[in-house]
């Protein structure tokens, strides 16, 4: 989501960590994708924090959102500009307390941070897949996560935790592997992306596809990829992660330089808000791949739990997991009404469900930023789950 910079406190961080790699779904056990295609072997980039208990009852899987990666917390090396994307929430004494829990996070299938995706080399051609990478769904991502968990020797997770697209993975996990998890924590998410959400993804993809440097996805090895298209996609998406109030609070109508309008049609970043969005776009291009962005936004658009499983009740009804759901008052991308639909289905199936709508002006990104209430909720929830409640 947005590039908010968390503060680094060496006493309360997992410190230096390394991304690890696992090779799964090797021939002849390729993964059969939801589209029907087969894919394998699949490399998975993942990180772990904390220690797995001898009883193996303290493992928590974190599912990252659209543009996240396996690097949830800590630092790769001293030159890193920033720690992992959920540094404030994962670490010793934090919401996901690495003194008590073994935390796993993996880059999603079709991602661009080490897990097999469109940047990987297609064994059939010896060239990067690009747009020939198979169509990936949220279900396919979860199939890979689930296999990784088994590969790490964990039979049952204490919890799966995720927000936004990560929350969709949590719900899908419940539906696909109902016995593999004891608790599902789904933040600022929904059982399907709204038409409005799809609309923004359509615009983002159009920006990439219409960039002349996109070259039908075969831009690897070229001096320049579809930088402008990808940056524009990010700028549009970024607007959906904030709220009207957070834009007002952050920027208002303040100008970038001086306090006078310049009456210059060529000036693109006269307002601070414009300058900020341009900056976000620029930074994003440095760390993300356009083909991967196309794959992942498509996966998000396709996600519809009720459609896939017949109804939400059928999708969520087979598990004995406990549920913790949260929504945020100013989130218009995944509004509270969508969380309530999940609550309703869970109550119909007599599930143990806790749902909290939290006050925040920060929009969809609130799940990454409003750490304090989240920590206060999740700590006792995990404790009770582990105690067998």
């Amino acid at each position, binding site marked *: 989501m947005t590039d908010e910079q968390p503060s680094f406190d060496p006493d309360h961080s997992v410190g230096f960590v390394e991304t690890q790699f696992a090779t799964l779904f090797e021939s002849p056990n390729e993964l059969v994708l939801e589209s029907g295609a087969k894919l394998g072997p699949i490399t998975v980039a993942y990180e772990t924090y904390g220690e797995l208990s001898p009883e193996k009852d303290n493992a928590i899987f974190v599912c990252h959102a659209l543009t996240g990666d396996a690097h949830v917390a800590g630092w790769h090396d001293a030159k890193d500009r920033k720690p992992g994307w959920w540094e404030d929430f994962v670490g010793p004494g934090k919401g996901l307390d690495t003194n008590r829990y073994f935390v796993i996070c993996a880059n999603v299938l079709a991602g661009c941070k080490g897990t097999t995706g469109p940047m990987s080399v297609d064994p059939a051609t010896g060239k990067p897949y690009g747009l020939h990478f198979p169509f990936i769904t949220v279900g396919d991502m979860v199939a890979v996560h689930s296999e990784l968990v088994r590969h790490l020797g964990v039979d049952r997770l204490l919890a799966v935790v995720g927000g936004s697209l990560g929350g969709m993975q949590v719900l899908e996990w419940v539906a696909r592997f109902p016995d593999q998890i004891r608790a599902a924590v789904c933040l600022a998410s929904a059982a399907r992306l709204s038409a409005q959400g799809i609309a923004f993804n359509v615009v983002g993809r159009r920006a990439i596809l219409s960039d002349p440097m996109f070259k039908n996805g075969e831009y690897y090895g070229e001096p320049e990829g579809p930088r402008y298209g990808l940056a524009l996609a990010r700028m549009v998406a970024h607007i959906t992660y904030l709220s009207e109030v957070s834009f007002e609070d952050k920027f208002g109508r303040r100008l970038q330089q001086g306090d006078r309008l310049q009456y210059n049609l060529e000036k693109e970043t006269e307002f601070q808000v414009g300058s900020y969005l341009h900056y976000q776009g620029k930074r994003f291009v440095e760390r993300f791949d356009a083909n991967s962005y196309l794959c992942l936004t498509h996966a998000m658009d396709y996600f519809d739990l009720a459609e896939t499983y017949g109804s939400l009740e059928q999708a969520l009804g087979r598990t004995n997991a406990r549920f913790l759901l949260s929504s945020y008052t100013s989130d218009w991308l995944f509004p509270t009404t969508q969380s309530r639909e999940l609550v*309703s289905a869970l109550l119909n199936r*007599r599930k143990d*469900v806790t749902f909290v709508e939290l006050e925040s002006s920060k929009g969809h990104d609130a799940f990454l930023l409003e750490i304090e209430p989240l920590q*206060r909720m999740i700590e006792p*929830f995990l404790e*009770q789950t582990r*105690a067998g409640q």
Partner: protein
Amino acid sequence: MSSKRFCLPDPKAAITDELLMQHIERGSRVIDLGCGDGRLLQRLRDEHDCSVQGVELDLDELLACVARGVPVLRADLDHKLDGIPDDVFDYAVLSQTLQQLRHPTTILTEVVRVAKRALVVVPNFGHWRVRYQVVWHGRAPVTSELPYEWYNTPNLHFMSMRDFRDLAERLNIEIAQELPIIRGSAHERAWLANLRAESLLYLLERKAVAT
């Protein structure tokens, strides 16, 4: 505040929990609306083998529920209980909460929608000491334990036993049982109940629709 002054029953009183426990069948599915810290639900789960669900607006109280392992939904009882399906609970509990809501009719309609039976505990404004106090001293009743005055009390509505009956009738809700609570214990029948009961426990049901 004068110590002689009559006080409405404390909503947190454990004595009410005991009464409610007696009226909920073992193994039932129970939703407590305005469940506070989840104390009653925890007992129903642990001692009566009930499947429980809380509803609470206050975040601190709600977190206390989470710490007890009691599942809880954050919701404002002055609005319709969106997200809670029809008829999924055996019992809905609304204990010493009705008088604190701005829209008592909304919640009364909702309790009999989400549950087959509702247990509603309300203070009785018809109690003789309330009447005496209002008439003789010209003072409004306040809650016993809490330092509220009339201008900051959470209790917004005062009703008597007779008032409650009228409202139930108007909302097409059946009063299956009406138990006056006198000095902390519920009675099947009581002489001059509207004068003597400090609270009332109602067992409510939806009226059967004539077919």
